[in-house]
């Protein structure tokens, strides 16, 4: 996720990464990771602490003062077989939620013009 500052609301963090802030820490599926004391206060979460605890890379562009928080490094890209939430746009800019296809078998085919 792209960040202008190293603090984020729990809602935004959940929307972008799927990790939910709970009293016991950050949780996703059946996994919870405690955060250091004080790293979630006043309605904001300290992104540096999140990155460190979850093994997420945090990279910076000096000139534009922007960060990108990457996915958690670990064993496999898929932590479960459930298709993660994916919303993409068509050429008209209309958003399409792949989750809306429940009830059908779906083949997702990635291609490119190049």
């Amino acid at each position, binding site marked *: *996720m792209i960040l202008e500052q190293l603090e984020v609301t729990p809602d935004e963090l959940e929307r972008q990464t799927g990790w939910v802030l709970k009293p016991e820490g950050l949780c996703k599926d059946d996994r919870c990771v405690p955060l250091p004391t004080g790293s979630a206060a006043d309605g904001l979460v300290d992104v540096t602490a999140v990155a460190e605890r979850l093994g997420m890379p945090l990279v910076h*562009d000096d000139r534009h003062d*922007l960060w990108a928080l990457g996915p958690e*490094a670990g064993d496999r890209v*898929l*932590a479960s077989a459930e298709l993660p939430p994916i919303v993409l746009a068509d050429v008209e800019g209309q958003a399409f939620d792949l989750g809306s296809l*429940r009830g059908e078998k779906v083949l997702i085919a*990635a*291609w490119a013009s190049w």
Partner: protein
Amino acid sequence: MALPVWQQLRTELHPQGLEIVTVALDLEVDAARSWIERSGADHPQLVDTAHRLDELLGIVNVPTALWVDENGMIVRPPHTAAVERYDFSKLKTPEGLPDDLDAHIRDMLEQVKRIPRFDADHYVEALRDWVEHGAASEYALTPEEVVQGSASRSPEVAEAAAEFELGQHLHHAGHVESARAHFRAAHRLQPENWTYKRNAWELVSPGIQGPSDFYDGDWLSDIKAAGPEHYYARPDF
């Protein structure tokens, strides 16, 4: 181009409950637009300008597909799906090119011809089998097999995703030069990701993705270094 083949398969298998969604891994929507508009497809055709599918699903090249069942469970993780029956051995360089470009393209075609052939007929049979038999199909994997069959995400691969995200964000904001530094970093961190590389090369060397002042690699040098037999991570279905 595989889009018409996906449309044919959709026409055949949609009555049996299969939907197809094509996703263009193009940085620029306009690069994909004419292909999409000409395809005449009646399934969703999306464009992933940020390469979310690379990060979320571990896609590193195209064409790549995955299968998802009625409950939203992946039953076949990302795999090469070159459904277009294309005879690369008949590829020729266009007439009338300058000598150096002609030699470069000749060299590219030699590499393309060494990419192992994908058995599209077998693939389509496997797809039909899954659509008909669902979880009972031998081609539908268990959740454990899907997780284990997905790509590995080392710290370098995770960092490459972050670098590419920053790069594409800056690119779309008009900061083309700043974007290149992050694309270069993504290339260095995950050299096996051809979508990161080819998108960036295409912007500075359209068509042949040749050497440039902006990137260390180019299509021809990189496929020679990797070996054309490794161009697709999973050539066998």
